[in-house]
């Protein structure tokens, strides 16, 4: 007994906006077939990289790697803000909750990520070793930590608790920080402050091609980050011969971008193609960029376990500096700002995040570090490459072995 399949019908031209077109099974199948054809014509293995945690999540959710030929590999690069967020910021958030009695408001993504403060006396999943505190641990130890879905919700918390300090753990890339900037320009209550942990993506793409062993042929560029910055910040990539396509996040969007990259490679014509025109204007969101520039300036930021990258993060400008948690809580900030070990001992999250090695090259992968008892950020985060691999990649290996015994296998050449 098998599930009914939808017949392949290309939807007619639409007047209204139809989000569901981008999940259409017929279109997905058609694009997968075109990709197979292009890959065959190209006649060599191709390595593509995306730099967006949500791309990794959606690829996993829809099993899109199953639909690609063996010769086309899509790697996850440094696009998971949870994985690159320096542990110092997490430690600061934890200390503000446990030592300063502040209400710490954070996106749910960050709550389970370990920083660098050791959690004594605890083993996780039966494994001894280097357990570090997360914000959830801070909550278990009496700190008040609240999950929020927007910076506006954090500001509302501050209004509702005028006698408490409310600190917003501002994480995420350029896509998210613009809301923080917009809110600050319009005014926040005096008991509100923020941890400046926002990162700027493009500098990582300057660094990546300089790394030894970098052999990526093209990039799927992040659709929503590009909607903010515009395309030109990635101009250096096609100039270095790398194929580029700005991609949306539905299955059709991702596959169309992969097809575009194969086409560019086939013609040896690398360029910046915009495959997400319905959301991404070539020039980006000019208004958002102006508000952002008013509130924040670019500064050197430490990418966890990777490097200090110039102009890769956001710091509040002088006029707004009083809203920084570093200014509001100077003693705690100093305590948190230690030369922390970046990742727990033995963790290769940094290399995995850069796409330099596959998760199974890390000695801890699948042994001491599993989704049940995660060791480093790449296994904790739902977009973390290691977590995605453990759930999907390892499984895929098993699926392939099973297929040799006669089960169904999809999507191979």
């Amino acid at each position, binding site marked *: *007994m098998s*599930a*009914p*399949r*939808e017949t392949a019908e290309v939807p007619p031209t639409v007047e209204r906006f139809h989000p569901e077109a981008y*999940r259409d*099974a017929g279109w*997905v*199948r058609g694009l*997968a077939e075109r990709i197979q054809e292009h890959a065959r014509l190209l006649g060599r293995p191709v390595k593509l990289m995306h730099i967006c*945690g*949500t791309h990794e*999540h959606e690829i*996993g*959710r*829809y*099993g*899109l*790697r*199953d*639909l690609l030929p063996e010769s086309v590999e899509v790697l996850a690069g440094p696009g*998971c*803000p*949870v994985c690159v967020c320096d542990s110092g910021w997490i430690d600061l958030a934890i200390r503000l909750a446990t030592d300063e009695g502040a209400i710490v408001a954070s*996106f*749910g*993504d960050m*709550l*389970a990520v370990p920083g660098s403060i050791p959690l004594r006396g605890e083993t996780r999943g039966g494994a001894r070793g280097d357990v570090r505190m997360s914000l*959830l641990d801070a909550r278990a130890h009496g700190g008040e930590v609240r*999950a929020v*879905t*927007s910076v506006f919700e954090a500001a509302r918390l501050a209004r509702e608790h005028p006698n408490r300090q409310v600190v917003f753990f501002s994480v*995420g890339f350029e896509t*998210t920080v613009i809301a923080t900037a917009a809110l600050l320009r319009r005014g926040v209550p005096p008991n509100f402050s923020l941890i400046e942990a926002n990162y700027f993506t493009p500098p990582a793409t300057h660094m990546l091609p300089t790394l030894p062993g970098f052999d990526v042929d093209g990039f799927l560029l992040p659709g929503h980050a590009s909607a903010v910055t515009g395309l030109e910040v990635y101009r250096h990539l096609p100039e270095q011969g790398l194929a580029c396509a700005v991609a949306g996040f539905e*299955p059709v969007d991702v596959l169309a971008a992969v097809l575009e990259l194969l086409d560019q490679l086939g013609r040896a014509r690398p360029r910046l193609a915009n495959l997400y025109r319905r959301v991404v204007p070539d020039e980006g969101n000019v208004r958002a960029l102006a508000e952002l520039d008013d509130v924040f300036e670019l500064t050197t930021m430490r990418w966890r376990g990777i490097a200090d990258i110039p102009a890769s993060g956001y710091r509040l400008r002088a006029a707004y500096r009083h809203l920084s948690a570093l200014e509001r809580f100077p003693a705690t900030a100093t305590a948190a700002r230690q030369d922390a070990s970046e990742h727990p001992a033995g963790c290769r999250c940094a290399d995995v995040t850069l796409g330099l090695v596959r998760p199974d090259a890390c000695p801890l992968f699948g042994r001491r570090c599993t*989704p*049940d008892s995660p060791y480093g950020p790449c296994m904790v*985060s*739902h*977009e973390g490459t290691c977590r995605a691999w453990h*759930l*999907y990649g390892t*499984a895929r290996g*098993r*699926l392939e072995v*099973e297929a040799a*015994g*006669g*089960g169904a296998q*999809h*999507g191979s050449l």
Partner: protein
Amino acid sequence: MARYDAIRLAHGSGGRLTAELIRELFAATFASEPLAALTDAAVLDNLGGRLAFATDTHSVKPWRFPGGDIGRLAVAGTVNDLAVMGAVPTYLSAAFLLEEGFRMEDLEAVVRSMKATADEAGVEVVAGDTKVVERGKGDGIFVTTTGVGFLPDGRDIGPQRLTAGDVLLVNGTLGDHGLAVMAAREGLELGMALTSDVAPLGGLVEALLAAAPDVHFLRDLTRGGLAAVANEMVEARPFGLRVWDAQVPLDRDVAELSEMLGIDPLLAANEGKLVVAVPPAQADAALQAMRAHPLGRRAAVIGDLVARPAGMALVETAYGSRRVLEMPVEEQLPRIC
């Protein structure tokens, strides 16, 4: 009892206030003979045969949520644990751990809800206990229920009967309880009609077994959703499990909200849903029987057990691709990435 707006420590200390609470609230509302007799234990002498026996404890916050409350949850939870064994739930006990200061009118509402749910399920509450802890030492109210049910001869339902080729069904939309509680807890001002699906399923199970007597396996979905049960079913077994994404029934608002929060409804909690494994020959009868019942209107075939890959639960997408249906680890949190 009208004299007390809120629970005091004395209500749990075994003296006059305890006796009043038991007599005027619990015994009066549950209205069973053993409780009316106020003996230390209920004597049950009409069961015979094999018994199924289960217990469940609840601490849900908030104690009342759209579609239900902790009382309904507590009764339905134990009733469903018994029903999925193929037993006929018959008697329950109910134990309350109350925090000093818990409002009397809220307790009355919980107890009334338990009585109503018990009536729906055809069970009687015949024993109970109450304790009170100091203000600040409890979380309002905890409820524990324990139940017994009679297991008719000839019923053999359990994991030992699972085998590759079995067809999997559910009795309706998934993730309702988890998303309803999350929306209530997050204070999301959405105006959506998200309600918990909490319900006692004994009647549905009997209707199902009457039409499809060779059901191999039943399990109620609770915390951890379909994902938790799916993984439990295949762990270290010589078969695997496949769910067809496109076949899983979802309430439209649950689908929208889970999309917005980045939550997977297959991992979200249910309190009125079960998964059924039947041999293919009985799949249609099972489906029709559930759809004919008020608690099974949106029943659907959602997957099957496969020979390979063994020991794993997979989701097959509308595109034919696959992903692993992970065993939930921690509570799902809304994400923005």
